[in-house]
């Protein structure tokens, strides 16, 4: 696949090991601007490991080693010469378990990324917080209680708060690691709804164990098994007429 002007992230031959275990085996994928790309596959297939390399959070896991290239804005962000802190300001992440920071109010949670980067002016912070909470479809529900603790919200609201928090630092790419697997169906539906608005500003890469979710929200879908990329393409092709038999079997529920 040749890189086009619309490519925002280009992963080339990514390999990841945990000690001796080869978790991700030579995967190459490209991501286009303002799209939602989903990664599906049975448990233990390396989806989360792959995703965590894209913002170098894999380095937090002891024993993890990654090789290959991840090209973003003209440089290989996997290289040791690149500061991971800088990478993570452009590639944000929302985790599986909603994790508002303890001891901080809703408002503090949203602006913490900005504050710690040195932005102090209250009106700028407030304006930005409102915008991000609106993008995360949470503003109406919390606008009267911004000073309440972040952890006093329900699970679904906490996750939307985490989304707002990630959006506050304006990353062009947002990674989501099974963001709704700890939530009930209604909270899940609310988050899926806001994704279609979200992609107008941000490119989303989402790992999900729920392939129906991938079918519902993703423009492109990649299918992994045991660290290998089996198939990838437009969701509407993968889910109506996949080319690989393994993909077909997985989607029809025959394994995984």
């Amino acid at each position: 696949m040749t890189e086009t002007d619309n490519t925002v992230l280009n992963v080339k031959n990514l390999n990841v090991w945990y000690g001796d275990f080869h978790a991700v085996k030579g995967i190459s994928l490209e991501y286009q601007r303002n799209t939602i790309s989903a990664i599906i596959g049975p448990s233990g297939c390396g989806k989360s490991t792959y995703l965590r390399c894209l913002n170098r959070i894999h380095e937090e896991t002891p024993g993890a080693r990654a090789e290959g290239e991840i090209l973003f804005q003209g440089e290989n962000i996997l290289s040791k010469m690149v500061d991971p802190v800088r990478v993570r300001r452009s590639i944000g992440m929302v985790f599986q378990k909603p994790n508002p920071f303890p001891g901080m109010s809703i408002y503090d949670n949203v602006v913490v990324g900005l504050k710690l980067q040195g932005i102090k002016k209250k009106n700028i912070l407030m304006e930005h917080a409102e915008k991000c909470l609106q993008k995360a479809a949470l503003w109406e529900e919390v606008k009267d209680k911004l000073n309440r603790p972040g952890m006093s919200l329900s699970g679904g609201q906490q996750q939307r708060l985490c989304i707002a928090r990630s959006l506050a630092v304006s990353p062009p790419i947002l990674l989501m690691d099974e963001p709704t697997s700890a939530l009930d169906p209604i909270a899940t539906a609310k988050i899926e709804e806001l994704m279609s608005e979200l992609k107008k500003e941000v490119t989303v890469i989402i790992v999900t164990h729920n392939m129906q979710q991938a079918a519902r929200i993703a423009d492109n879908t990649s299918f992994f098994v045991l660290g290998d990329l089996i198939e990838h393409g437009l969701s509407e092709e993968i889910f109506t007429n996949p080319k690989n038999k393994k993909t077909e079997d997985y989607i029809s529920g025959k394994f995984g």
Partner: protein
Amino acid sequence: MNMTSQQLIDEILEMASVVEAILDKCMDMKIPKDKLEELENKVNQFHIKIDDDSFKYIALKQPHARDLRIALSMMKINAQLERVADEAYNLRRYYNELQITPSAIKTLHDQVKKMIRGAIDALVTNNTYQATEVIKSDRYANELNREIMKEYVEKMKNNEMSFDEGLSGIRVAKNLERIGDLSTNIAEDVIFIVSGSDIRHQSQLKEQK
């Protein structure tokens, strides 16, 4: 993919307006053949697109209940509309053979135009009463068809009419009658969407055959 069931319905409505235009113009010899061909091509494009969109909608959005009934019914109504267009387009050739048009054919034409309009309106307004009226009025269309057949057969027997003309006239009436049947099918699909009931093959609503 952000398709909704309402968008599928909107596509069907667009297709229906083209089909109704063909039905309206098929007996108007002042309109050139290639104009009708253009409309027929549009219908074929809709036919392919709507099936594809419905298929993808079901695969990607996993619709349930009413949304699922809509997606399935749009595929069926799609096929029925395409056949209406076909029947209308094809009857033109036979209509051309007629020296005079008996009023019965004109009446039958008006009747089936009303029926298809009624079925489509019922779809827009979710009106099962209107759909039922369409189904009931199929009886009248069938009667008209039988009348025309009788008249033409009579005339052919008495050598008042040539075989060519006679058979053409019967053919025109037959196509129109089929269009009436197809409108009935569309109305049955509308009732399925609204109420979830499959009322096909139930004799209370149709005439005894």
